[in-house]
């Protein structure tokens, strides 16, 4: 624990140091024509934003410095256990053919690994759409016919989806929890190798204080440029960031809501979530319940841990910016709601700090936007420089400190890009790059990812600013279903969703030309991509996974060494969809036939 404390202190000191350095550089740059109140505002905003960037870099540095360089990749050994585990698959208006193919693949995996008798599978439906519910009933019957003999398989649908996913899992515990030592909580798009599931049970058996064990799920099945960039990001960078997180977590690690195992007794004892007083968005049900549950487990003395070496854990991600932003809107509301929870009695200080980070993850965007606004406004708000500070002497003209500005920019970007480049270096040393097409391929893909992130980040900044403003103005985003198979976005759809981002980019540049022409070239880095937001959203959503894969763009081990459970799921899904049978009176034809999430748009 002492080492963890030292790491935490050093990481926080690093952030403060970076914020201080950037602030001092900014003082030098902004004071070329005299420091005024607007400069003080800019310096504070820049320092706060830099501290946040540095915190992300601190996770990476902790991960980069962690040993061993490569985790042990030997297959997990099968160890005897008497523990019973329920694999929970909460569903909410998702395509049942797709979801149940994931369950089928995991059942097959448990059978072939010889652990089928240890795991019961329970599909917990909160589906509100009756058409989807009928499909669920049909495909559950099909799942049972094919795989029900090999394992215990349950399905139930709640009449009301009280408490959303947390309520769904809670309802299972209140109904059936006493039968199971552990609950493996998944999402509708989760996949996990049976060997990983068995290893998680072994680790829970070995540590009676361990209340929750989280894996790092890798993204699979990405089809678009955007999706594959995220797949590369979670496959290549995230293990290092997660190792950093694991170094800092102590006993109060994270819970990301799925692909994690919990001790049923600990979870039941600690994680009954109340409704918060007041109305949404800040009151009502807790949306980002996972972090709250992790904090409550830690509060009751249970250990919560993420083990980055637990491979064989997968999920799917959004394939376009709009779906990403939709999910982000929900997370934003949930994370800002943490401001109500972070003062809860008895929480560990680190849990409170984690809540602060969750809030900062979304507040950072408005801080950057305010910094840009203040920078445009600054020249107009400042007085005329005093060219004759000493009467009778020669005039003194303001110095334009372009060198300082460049240092500032390099420093801020360095916090974003530096860790990613260092991950390539570490991969070259450890040999990890071999799974990503070698060091040169990994470097090229890293640079491509950095370029695409640089173009899309200013657009995401605007979506996040809007989300934060909506939450603070009392708008409840609700609980839209996730359409994990929504593919490409047409230009007209992209325009409808992001014309206002484009307009903001134009207005920003217009004001900059008028009031702060010296900043136009800098602002182009942000406002430029915003102007072209619809086009960038459209292009980045193109479904071109085959061509991108062929060209080794964003190559990951998901392409070179696909996991058996992923291949099983693809085979089942292809077979089921190929049959195109009538399902409860509703035709099931093509993959796109049932797009429940589309109904919520």
């Amino acid at each position, binding site marked *: 624990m002492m080492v963890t404390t030292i790491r935490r202190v050093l990481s926080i000191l690093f952030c403060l140091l970076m914020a201080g350095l950037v602030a001092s550089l900014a003082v030098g740059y902004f004071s070329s024509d005299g420091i005024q109140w607007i400069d003080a505002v800019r310096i504070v905003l820049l320092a706060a934003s830099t501290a946040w960037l540095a915190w992300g870099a601190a996770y990476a540095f902790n991960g980069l410095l962690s040993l061993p360089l490569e985790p042990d990749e030997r297959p997990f050994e099968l160890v005897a256990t008497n523990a019973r585990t329920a694999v929970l698959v909460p569903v909410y208006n998702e395509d049942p053919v797709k979801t149940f193919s994931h369950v089928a693949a995991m059942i097959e995996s448990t059978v072939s690994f010889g652990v089928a008798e240890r795991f019961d599978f329970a599909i917990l439906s909160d589906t509100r759409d009756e058409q989807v519910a009928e499909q669920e009933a049909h495909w559950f*019957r099909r799942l049972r016919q094919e795989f029900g003999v090999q394992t215990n398989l349950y*399905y*139930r649908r709640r009449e009301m989806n009280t408490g959303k996913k947390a309520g769904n899992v809670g309802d299972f515990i209140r109904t*059936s929890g*006493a*039968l199971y030592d552990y609950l493996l909580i998944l999402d509708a798009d989760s996949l996990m190798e049976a060997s990983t599931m068995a290893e998680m049970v072994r680790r829970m058996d070995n540590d009676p204080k361990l209340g929750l064990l989280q894996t790092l799920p890798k993204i699979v099945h990405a089809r678009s440029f955007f999706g594959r960039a995220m797949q590369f990001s979670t496959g290549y960078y995230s293990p290092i960031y997660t190792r950093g997180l694991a170094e800092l977590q102590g006993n109060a690690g994270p819970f990301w809501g799925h692909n994690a195992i919990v001790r049923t007794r600990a979870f039941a004892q600690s994680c009954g979530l109340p409704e918060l007083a007041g109305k949404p968005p800040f009151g009502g049900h807790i949306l980002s319940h996972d972090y709250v549950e992790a904090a409550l487990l830690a509060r009751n003395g249970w250990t919560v841990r993420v083990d980055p070496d637990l491979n064989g854990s997968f999920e799917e991600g959004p394939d376009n910016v709009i779906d990403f932003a939709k999910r982000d809107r929900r997370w934003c509301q949930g994370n800002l709601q943490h401001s109500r929870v972070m003062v809860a009695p008895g929480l560990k200080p680190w849990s409170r700090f984690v809540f602060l980070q969750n809030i900062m993850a979304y507040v950072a965007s408005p801080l950057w936007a305010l910094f840009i606004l203040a920078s445009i406004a600054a020249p107009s708000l400042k007085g005329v420089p005093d060219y004759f500070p000493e009467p009778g002497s020669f005039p003194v003209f303001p110095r334009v400190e372009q060198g300082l500005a460049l240092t500032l920019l390099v420093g801020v970007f360095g916090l974003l890009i530096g860790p990613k480049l260092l991950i390539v270096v570490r991969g070259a040393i450890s040999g990890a790059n071999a799974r990503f097409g070698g060091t040169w391929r990994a470097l090229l893909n890293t640079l491509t990812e950095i370029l695409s992130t640089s173009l899309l980040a200013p657009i995401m900044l605007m979506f996040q600013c809007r989300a934060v403003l909506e939450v603070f103005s009392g708008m409840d985003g609700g609980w839209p279903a996730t359409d994990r198979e929504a593919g490409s976005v047409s230009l007209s759809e992209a325009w409808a969703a992001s014309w206002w981002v484009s307009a903001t980019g134009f207005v920003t540049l217009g004001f900059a030309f008028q009031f702060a022409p010296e900043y136009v070239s800098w602002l182009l880095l942000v406002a430029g991509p915003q102007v072209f937001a619809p086009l960038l959203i459209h292009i980045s959503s193109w479904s071109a996974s085959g061509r991108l894969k062929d060209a080794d763009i964003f190559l990951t081990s998901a392409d070179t060494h696909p996991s058996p459970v992923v291949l099983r799921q693809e085979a089942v899904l292809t077979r089921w969809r190929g049959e195109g049978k009538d399902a409860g009176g509703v035709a099931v034809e093509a993959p796109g036939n049932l797009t429940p999430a589309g109904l919520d748009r």
Partner: protein
Amino acid sequence: MTRVLEAGNGRLELDGFALPVAPMAMPEQVLERPRVRTAFFATILKRFAWK
């Protein structure tokens, strides 16, 4: 609250796959502190209440 999907049309036959019943209590946790102002005024009122 829990309901197994009813086999309205007689084809679904899901009742046999209802969740096994083995309830476990899940007490609601305290997340919010009592409002300090209310508690403060309540204390003051109690102190100055007629004996």
